[in-house]
C-alpha cells in the first residue's frame, strides 16, 4: 500500500510549484482588486493554502515531516484568524451597514 508521500511524489515537483504560485497570485489579485471584505478574506485564505500546498509538497519530496507540521499550525492559526476576522467584519457591518473596504478610510487624517 502506498503512503501519502508516495502518492504526492507521483506528480512532479514543478507542477506543485506552478500550481501554488498561480493560487498565490490569484489570492494577491483578489486582495488587490475586490472591495468586498469577505471576498478579500477568502483571497487571503487562498494565499495561505497555496503556501500550505507548497509546504506539503516539499515536505514529501525531502522526506522531512516538519513541513507538514507547519501546515497543521498554519491551518490552526488560520482557523483562529478567520473567527476573529469574520467577527470584525460582522461588527463593521453592524456599524455602517456595509462591508465595502473602500469606505473604511477613517484612519486618514
Amino acid at each position, binding site marked *: 500500500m502506498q503512503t501519502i508521500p508516495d502518492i504526492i511524489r507521483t506528480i512532479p515537483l514543478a507542477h506543485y510549484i506552478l500550481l501554488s504560485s498561480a493560487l498565490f497570485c490569484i489570492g*494577491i489579485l483578489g*486582495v*488587490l482588486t475586490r472591495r468586498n471584505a469577505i471576498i478579500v478574506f477568502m483571497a487571503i485564505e487562498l494565499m495561505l493554502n497555496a503556501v500550505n500546498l507548497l509546504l506539503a509538497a516539499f515536505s514529501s519530496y525531502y522526506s522531512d515531516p516538519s513541513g507538514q507540521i507547519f501546515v497543521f499550525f498554519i491551518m490552526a492559526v488560520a482557523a483562529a484568524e478567520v473567527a476573529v476576522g469574520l467577527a470584525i467584519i460582522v461588527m463593521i457591518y453592524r456599524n455602517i451597514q456595509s462591508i465595502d*473596504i*473602500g469606505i473604511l*478610510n477613517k*484612519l*486618514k*487624517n
Partner: protein
Amino acid sequence: MSLIYLIPLLPFIGFVVNGLSFPNISKQLAAIIGTIPPLAAFLISIQVFVNFDGTTQILHVAEWIKLGDLQIPFDFQIDALSILMLLVITGVGTLIHIYSIGYMAHDPGFGKFFAFLNLFIFFMLILVLGANFTVLFIGWEGVGLCSYLLIGFWNQKNSYGNAARKAFIMNRIGDLGFLIGIFLLIQDFGSTGYATIFSSIQQGDVPDNLGVIAFCLFVGAMGKSAQIPLFTWLPDAMAGPTPVSALIHAATMVTAGIYMVIRANVIFELSPDILHLVGWIGLSTALLGAIIGLFQNDIKKVLAYSTVSQLGYMFMGLGASAYSASFFHVMTHAFFKALLFLGAGSVIHAMSDEQDIRKMGGLKSKMPITYFTFLLGTLAISGIPPFSGFFSKDEILANLYHHDLLMWSLAILGSACTSFYMFRVFILTFWGEFRGSEKQASHLHESPWSMTIPLIILALFSVAGGLINLPHFAGGNEFLAHWLAPLLPSPESLGEVSFFSLEMGAPLLAAFIPPLLAIFIFSSKKLIPAEDSQIQGIQKLIYQKFYIDELYDLIIVKPINFLSVFFGQVIDFLVIDLFVEGIGKIVQYASTEFKRIQTGNVGYYVFMMVISIAIILFMGLKSWIL
C-alpha cells in the same frame, strides 16, 4: 596655631556682614565692621611673625579635589615669605581702611565699598597663604574680581565701567597662561603643592617642559603685575576710588605676580632663558612706564605709570635672580606707593575731585601734613638715601650691575626718569601759585585725621623701611635676605661696594640730578605743562602713551569686532539660518508632500505592500544568485 585660620576668616566675616547689611546700617557702624577685621588680622600676623621659628608649616584646612591619583588639598603654608606678605597686606590694608573712612565719607556706597575692600583682603590672604598653586589661583582670581568691582565702583560713569572690564579681560589673558602652567605642573608632577613640586625638582626630577611651565607662569605674572604687553589696564584702573588705587593697584595685588615668581623660584632658576625674558620684559616695562610718566598731567596717571615702572624694576631683579632684593622692593614700594597714592587722594579730596596737576600748585601751606608726607614718599621713590626706596632699588641695581651691564645702564636711565617725574608732580602740586578756580581755592583744607594718620604712619615706614634689609656697607645685617634665605637659591656674593664706585655713584647721580632739573624747570622758571591741544611732536606721542591703547585697539579689538560682525551677519545667516533652519524646512516640506500617499484606501496600502515585498524579494534573490 588655630589663630592663623582667623587671618583670612575675619575679613571674610567683615565682607559678609557689611555686604548683607548695606545700606541698612549707619556709616559709622559699617566703618567699624569694615576696619576691625584687617586690624585684628594684622595683630594676629604680628603674633605669627614673632613666634615663627624658621620652619615651614603646612596647615591642613580641608580636603578639596580628589581625582584618582591627583589630590589637591586646601592647605595653608606658613613660611618666611607668606608671613611677610601677611604683614604687608594686613598692615597697609588696615591703614587704607582707616583712610577710606575719611575719603569715602560722603559717598552713598560707603558700606559696599568696605565690603569689597574686606573681600579683597580675604582673597589676597588666600593667595599668599595657599600651600599649592591651585589655592593660590583661587586668591589670584578673587583679587582680580575685587579689582574689577572696585575699579568700576562708581559704575554710573560708562568709562569707569569700561576701565573695569579692561582690567578684568587683560587679567584673564594672563590667567589663561597661569592656568595652563598649573595644568602642566599637574601633568608633570601629579600635584600642585609647592613642597612636592620643588622637592622633586631639587632631587633632579626635571621635566623637559619646565621652560614652558616657567613661561606660562610668567604670562600669568605679566597680566597681574602689569608688564608689557599686558600693562595698559593698570593706568586705566585709576578710575576707581583712590584708596583702591593705593591698596590694590600699587601696594598689594599687582605684586602678586612677583610673589608668585619668587614662590616658584626653583622652577625659574632652571629655566635661564625664561629668566632672561623676565629681566628684559621688566626692563622694557620699567623704561616705558618711566618715559610715559614724564609727561602725564593727571596726578593719579603719573603714579600709575610709576607703579608700572617700579613693577618693571622688581621683575628686572627677578631676572637677575635677585629674589630677596625684588621682595625688598615689593615691601618698600608698598609703603611709599601707598603713601603717594593716599597723598594724591588727599589732594584730590581737597581739590574737589580735580586730578590735573596743571590746576593745582601752592598747596604746601594749605595742607602741611599731606605736603610733608608726600615729600617723604617722593624722596623714597626717587631713591635718595637714606630713604627706603634707595636701599631697595639700589640692591636691584647692584645685582643688575653684576648680571648685565646694558640692563643696568638702561635701568639707571629709567630711575632718572622716575625721580624727574616724581619731583615734577610734587613741585607742580605743592609749590608755586595756586592755579585752580576761585571755588576750589575757597574749599581747600587739610584732610581729616582719619586720612592724615595713615599718611603719617606710611611716611614713617617709607623713611625707615630700608632698615629691614640694611646692607652691610650701611651698617646693617641684611635681615630680609637672611629671613628669606631658606626659600631662595643662595645668592652670589656681590662683594663690598663703596659710595665712590661707578656701581654706587651712577644710581646716586640718577637720583639727585633729575630733581634739581625739575626744580629748575618747574620752580625757578615756573613752567607749567602745556594744555592738551598745544602738546606737539614727540611730547605728544609720549603724552598719548605711545598710542599703545590705540595700537591694541587696532590690532586686537577692531579685528575681533570685525570678526564678531562677520560671524553675526554672514556666518549666522549662512550657517544658522540657511543650514540649520533649512533642514527643518526641508523636513516640513517633505512631510507635506509625503502626507499625500496616505490616502486611507486599504486596497492602495495592500498594493504598496505587495509591490514592496516583491521588490525586497527581488533584491534578496538577486544577492543570493550573485
